[in-house]
């Protein structure tokens, strides 16, 4: 077991190392951040001073070694633009993104499950067909375009909801969040819905499939025969059956959520990590881009490692196959 974990840890470290190479060199080949940062009136001497101050006068290999040394000490470098540690900047933007992701997951569940249940219980009805057709739309609609349409409809024409930014925050249970104020919630609604769209479609399909499958199974037939009330059958037995795949898939979808929050945050000017990434990309704030991508890499590698270890505990064959190879 220990050998297995050590092997996997080594593999994970190799992956992280390779990714750091790709990310660092990839991000460092385009453009020149100095021109982005410097005042246009600056003369040559000032430009050279800035290049030195940012450490860009050194050969790129040396910059990379310096960067690796920093990572080993938990230091991802300082933002060119803000002069603050990149990690600190990202962590400052993290709560807004998590807030958005959680609310959109919640929306996916709250809207998706009832619709999916309905479509599964009454598959032949027109409403159900409409639901299923819309779920395909949910997959296919380009997130960014829907975002624009939401703004156009709800903010510009109807004027019901604010179109951009995060609302007022308040502290409740020791957590600072915009969930605790009306203003905050009203700002959150559109971006969360926008982000949730794909997942609503996914949940509808999963829960419909779950219902279709379960309806033919013995225990449901038995419960029906026993004369249990319909709401009990649905509420207890069906839900149990469909929640497992939904929870699993949504867990896996978290990564995608993170990726697409980049789009949603850009459209709705939501001050989260995704917007920070795009802003940093466009302004060539390389340390922040590299730090963001490295954090994502570390996150995914860690998740994979955990999954592998859990699997190997549950199913020893995985471990054996690995040794055989």
């Amino acid at each position, binding site marked *: 077991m220990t050998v297995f974990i050590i092997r996997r840890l080594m593999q994970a470290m190799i992956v992280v190392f390779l990714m750091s190479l790709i990310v660092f060199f990839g991000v460092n080949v385009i453009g020149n951040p100095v021109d982005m940062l410097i005042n246009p009136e600056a003369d040559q001497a000032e430009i050279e001073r800035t290049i030195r101050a940012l450490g860009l006068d050194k050969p790129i290999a040396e910059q990379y070694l310096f960067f690796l040394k920093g990572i080993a000490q938990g230091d991802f470098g300082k933002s060119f633009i803000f002069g603050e540690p990149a990690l600190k900047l990202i962590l400052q933007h993290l709560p807004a993104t998590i807030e958005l992701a959680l609310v959109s997951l919640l929306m996916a569940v709250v809207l998706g499950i009832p619709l999916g249940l309905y479509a599964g219980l009454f598959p032949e009805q027109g409403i159900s067909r409409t639901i299923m057709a819309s779920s395909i739309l949910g997959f296919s609609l*380009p997130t*960014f375009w829907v975002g624009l349409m939401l703004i156009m409809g709800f903010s510009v024409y109807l004027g019901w909801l604010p179109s951009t930014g995060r609302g007022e925050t308040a502290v409740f249970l020791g957590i600072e969040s915009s969930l605790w104020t009306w203003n905050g919630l009203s700002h959150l609604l559109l971006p969360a819905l926008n982000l949730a769209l794909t997942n609503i479609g996914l949940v509808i399909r999963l829960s419909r499939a779950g219902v279709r499958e379960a309806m033919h199974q013995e225990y449901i037939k038995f419960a029906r025969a026993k004369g249990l009330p319909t709401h009990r059958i649905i509420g207890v037995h069906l839900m149990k059956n469909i929640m497992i795949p939904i929870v699993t898939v949504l867990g896996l979808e978290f990564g995608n959520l993170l990726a697409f929050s980049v789009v949603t945050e850009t459209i709705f000017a939501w001050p989260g990590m995704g917007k920070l990434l795009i802003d940093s990309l466009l302004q060539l704030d390389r340390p922040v881009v590299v730090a963001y991508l490295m954090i994502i890499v570390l996150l995914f590698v860690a998740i994979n490692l955990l999954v592998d270890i859990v699997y190997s505990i549950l199913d020893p064959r995985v471990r054996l196959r690995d040794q055989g190879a």
Partner: protein
Amino acid sequence: MTDQSLNPEDNTAAQAVLVETPFQRFVSEYADNKIAVVSLVVLVAIVVLAILAPWITPQNPYDLAQVSIMDAAQPPGTEAFDGYTMWLGSDGAGRDLYSAILYGIRISLMVGLASGLIALIIGTAIGLVAAYAGGRVDTLIMRAVDLQLSFPAALIALMLVAALGRGIDKIIIALVVAQWAYYARTVRATALVESAKEYVEAARCLGLSHGRVIFKHVLPNCLAPLIVIGTVQTASAIALESTLSFLGVGLRQTEPSLGVLISSGREYIISGRYWISIFPGIALLLTIVSINLVGDQLRDVLNPRLKK
């Protein structure tokens, strides 16, 4: 010699009889679903319009001599500086939107198909190697595939475009890298199943070369799942390209794809000039949805396991 020359003839003869019926069955099964038929018609129409674009549009939106700033941001139905009517209005640079959308679909389809095809070829090759080589090579390849699939494709593409810069070639490279693993995994799985079957064993015993076995027997069996994955991945490639362009890291503004057009329409939303982002959006939506619906039906028809 004689054996080898006989074999293929036998095959083709046998296929000629069979091909007729499965194809007809395929068509009739596909036609079962009305929505799928409509989507196919829409998709074909979109492709034809895109191919014919240079002959059926009043303007080449990429030729500056034909675009005039005097036509900028005009509403649908306005008469253009050069005399024709702009039925869908014009964008902020004075391009006729109808022309720009058809040319934009061309770019989208080209990016989607090119990246899908390249990813398919690379993914298939890698998948076959993994299936045949087995052992360490297989483990290594499958580790890479797992790793790749654990990252969202959108993030991978974003990372790559960040590193590579803008332009159509770079977008295609980014999309290929983001998608090859789907093909590789499918091909490997199918190839493993197929090569364990008796007829392949038999073919091998007959002394047929690996290449022959692969191309004659294994690959044709991979075709069905590859077509299904191919359609889905093409749609997602088109969506990804437009998303990247929208974020400002994709294609250039002067030769706009649909994503760029929509993005350029964003600044006109509040002033009520809705047409600049809505019409290209609808075109994009129709393209993606029709490909997805066709792919959905293909999966149902081609995948025997899903049949009731």
